[in-house]
């Protein structure tokens, strides 16, 4: 086994082109568990912790578009200006593992592993995030919806490094909720991220629309397009009613595709999604 420690993105891409099957390491919260338990024996590891390019984030004030480096740890998303811009990401970040894990774990790592239980991924789906990748032959971008192709499967090609994600800051309320067996240090049983776009500024034809994405209840993160369309097309006067909010949750639950596994049952997960979705919509429409 070889460990490579590049200090720039260019150097890392050069190393990756020479070792196309190398494992990329950021926070280590997935890869090192597999190494510690002898479940994986990497031949080459390229550790990205010294790549300053991956550790920055920025907001374009004009376009209200935010770009977050793949190596920014979750701890940095929990508080401060990044959390002010994307409270749903801050809430998701706060549910990741423990403070020690959040100091290490990154969105790039979440995307590289692409577990359906990755806490950051429903946020990227709800915000229609773009994933930015670089290789020696150049860089490309891909929608998150096309990037995650299955459980622990993604569209990253050999020779590519995930460098950042970008998304527009929503104009309305945003929130995240997760169910696990305890508050801290828990892998999600079911999670949901809900974003409201407030639509036109004119009070007369204000038409709020909703985006909702689910985690841990399918082979990929699930965007509830049918539920969104149903709610978006309701007359405004009905959108906040208690019965609509309850039906919204039921519909989101129907769009989930959960399974029974060692962490929970499909039935419980579907129920949890219904409750979480209704709760988020309630919070979002009352605020």
């Amino acid at each position, binding site marked *: *086994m*070889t*460990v*490579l*420690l590049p200090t720039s993105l260019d150097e890392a891409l050069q190393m990756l082109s020479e070792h196309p099957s190398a494992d990329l*390491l950021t*926070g*280590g*919260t997935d*890869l*090192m*568990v597999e*190494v*510690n*338990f002898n479940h994986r*024996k*990497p031949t080459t*590891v390229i*550790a990205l*912790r*010294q790549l300053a390019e991956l550790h920055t984030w920025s907001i374009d004030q004009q376009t209200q578009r935010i770009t977050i480096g793949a190596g920014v*740890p979750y*701890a940095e998303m929990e508080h401060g200006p990044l959390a002010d811009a994307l409270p749903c990401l801050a809430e998701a970040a706060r549910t990741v*593992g*423990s*403070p*020690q*894990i959040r*100091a*290490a774990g990154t969105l790039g790592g979440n995307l590289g592993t692409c577990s359906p239980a990755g806490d950051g991924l429903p946020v990227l789906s709800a915000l229609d995030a773009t994933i930015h990748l670089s290789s020696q032959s150049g860089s490309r971008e891909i929608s998150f919806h096309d990037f995650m192709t299955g459980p622990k499967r993604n569209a990253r090609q050999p020779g590519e490094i995930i460098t950042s994600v970008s998304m527009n800051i929503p104009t309305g309320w945003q929130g995240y909720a997760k169910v696990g067996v305890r*508050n*801290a*240090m828990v892998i999600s049983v079911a999670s949901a991220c809900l974003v409201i776009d407030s639509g036109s500024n004119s009070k007369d034809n204000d038409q709020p629309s909703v985006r909702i994405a689910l985690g841990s209840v399918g082979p990929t993160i699930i965007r509830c397009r049918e539920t969104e369309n149903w709610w978006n097309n309701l007359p405004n006067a009905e959108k906040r009613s208690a019965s609509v909010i309850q039906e919204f949750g039921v519909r989101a639950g129907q769009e989930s595709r959960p399974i029974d596994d060692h962490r929970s049952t499909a039935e419980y997960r579907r129920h949890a999604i219904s409750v979480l979705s209704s709760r988020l919509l309630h919070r979002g429409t009352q605020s």
Partner: protein
Amino acid sequence: MSEHEIYTLRINGDEHHVKDAWIGESLLYVLRERLGLPGAKGACEQGECGSCTVVLDGDAVCSCLVLAASAVGSEIATVEGLSPDGSLTDVQQAFIDEGAVQCGFCTPGLIMAVHHLLDHNTTPTELEVKEALSGNICRCTGYGRIFAAVDKVVSVRLGASQ
């Protein structure tokens, strides 16, 4: 770096050469088994228990999840470095005074986590203390006394600064 290559880690301000190690070893393993620094404890080896907590470039992290060879060039602080002359820090003394140590296995990780918290937040709320220590598992169920120890350090430090 390839198999069995010697590399150097900077721990508690000193350079340590790591020899005859498998290159895939975690920082926890290297600290304990290669460098004779057994303060960080190994239990779960998957980042769940916090007993291996060290400070890496200013962040409290689980050393079991750090690939040791990837920490070349980083500043590593372990419980051994808190008080180089072997005396107790105020946090360690408060743990003893408040009876926050039972079997002691989780204690070094908790001590590191508490020092890290209080370095960044001199007056944490109860919720902030609980959240900061949520990655450190104590199975002797000593949390009440651990929180009492943190409270004591906070009040003593506040009194000293006034």
